[in-house]
């Protein structure tokens, strides 16, 4: 069970949250001009690192607000938690 610290509510059990997958995926500004491959990349291709992953979570059984966190996909260690409005932190892989 992960202990995740919601930026608004503080530390709560993982079961209060839902994971929304990879974060920092930016919707293309002009989808009409994209090739099928570029559109597929936006829709479907995902980072799947064995290591640091930047992902979105939502406190679905709490304040229902979204935020970002950085997590190691091998140790499950959470290395950073930050609001959606904050910039992506650069974190050294351990």
């Amino acid at each position, binding site marked *: 069970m992960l202990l995740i610290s919601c930026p608004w509510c503080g530390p709560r059990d*993982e079961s209060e949250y839902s*994971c929304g997958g990879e974060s920092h995926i930016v919707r293309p500004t002009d989808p009409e001009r994209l090739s099928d491959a570029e559109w597929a990349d936006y829709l479907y291709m995902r980072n799947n690192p064995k290591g640091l992953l930047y992902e979105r979570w939502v406190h679905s059984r709490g304040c229902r607000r979204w935020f970002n966190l950085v997590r190691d996909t091998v140790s499950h260690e959470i290395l950073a938690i930050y609001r959606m409005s904050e910039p992506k932190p650069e974190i050294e892989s351990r």
Partner: protein
Amino acid sequence: MKPRYSIVSLARNAFSHHQNWQAAWRSPAPQPEYDVAIVGGGGHGLATAYYLAKNHGVARIAVLEKGWLGGGNTARNTTVVRSNYLWDESAHLYEHSLKLWETLTRELNYNVMFSPRGVLNLAHSPHEMMEMRRRVNAIRLNGIDSEILDVAQVKTFCPILNLDPAARYPIVGASLQRRGGVARHDAVAWGFARAADDRGVDIIQNCEVTGFDIRDGRVAGLETTRGRIGARKVGIVVAGHSSVLAEMAGLRLPIVSRPLQALVSEPLKPILHTTVTSGTVHVYVSQSDKGELVLGAAMDGYQSYAQKGSPPVVEDFLAALVELFPVFSRLKVLRQWAGIVDVCPDASPIIDQTSVEGVYFNGGWGTGGFKATPGSGWVFADTIANDRPHRLAAPFALSRFHSGHLINEHGAAGIAH
């Protein structure tokens, strides 16, 4: 040729206290070069190597496994075999596989303990029942056995289910594929390994691939923990590590890796003669030949390579088990584990050539790869040998994510398995 296993060989070896069984496969040192190197010594990789040698006469084949044979997801899955898929593309692929299962023990001269005990999918609401009828009709139109059971028929077929109409999620009917069932997971890996080895395939364990040698867009070999191994063609079949291997070859995939948990109970006398799944209360369960209940449910909620999952997921599917089978409420859990499954956005696999000439990919089977083991090996071997997709594999090309021809099988089981 290896001596064939038979009742006679069993009796003969019993007289020598089973001390003289021949090793089931060699453990050769890697050759400098192979015609085809298969990365991944699980069921799918070994089946691919076997059919490459048998169906296509490829001479120099290696299977490179970073650990031991069948020690990954082949050892961790819950062994359900069935072909009751909604869409034509999936139905044809999994039915091809199921037909291979039906004769696999004889084909390999190795008892894979395929037990077609039926797979029962429960419905808990009129809406689910309607959807189930539509699904069963689609499956039957593909010539695959599937039938609807009403509550009385469910009671006859599996009397220990809780059929109380006042239950929180009452059972209102079910679909049943009688030809589905379970098989012995280890035996599948060992059987394919022995049969492939017999046809000259080099099975190299403790050999982790660390990089690809790609020259002018064409593969020339692999860097491994046991040195460089030349290869004219490379097949990547590494459930749980697809993205990691693909990245080494410079490929990007629509795959994420997540834990799928399972557990077994303490052993019981025979009590559950079939496989029961419920998509509403989220559990599937069968009883192994050792007597343990084998059960699992859906994937954990986030990406991971840790081969461990979250306790709340286990709690949920144990609650579901007791909901369906009050008779199991006092059972003890014997052991619990997780495997890492590679999932595509449409819950269907990718079987394809890649943008690197000579590199082929087979993965993204999500939570249901075991049932496909022989069929997957069959079509992947054909794809590698002939350098074009096998007829049944063609719809599962990576390009479907560009063209939009997704094969959405998220509802294939109601729950994932």
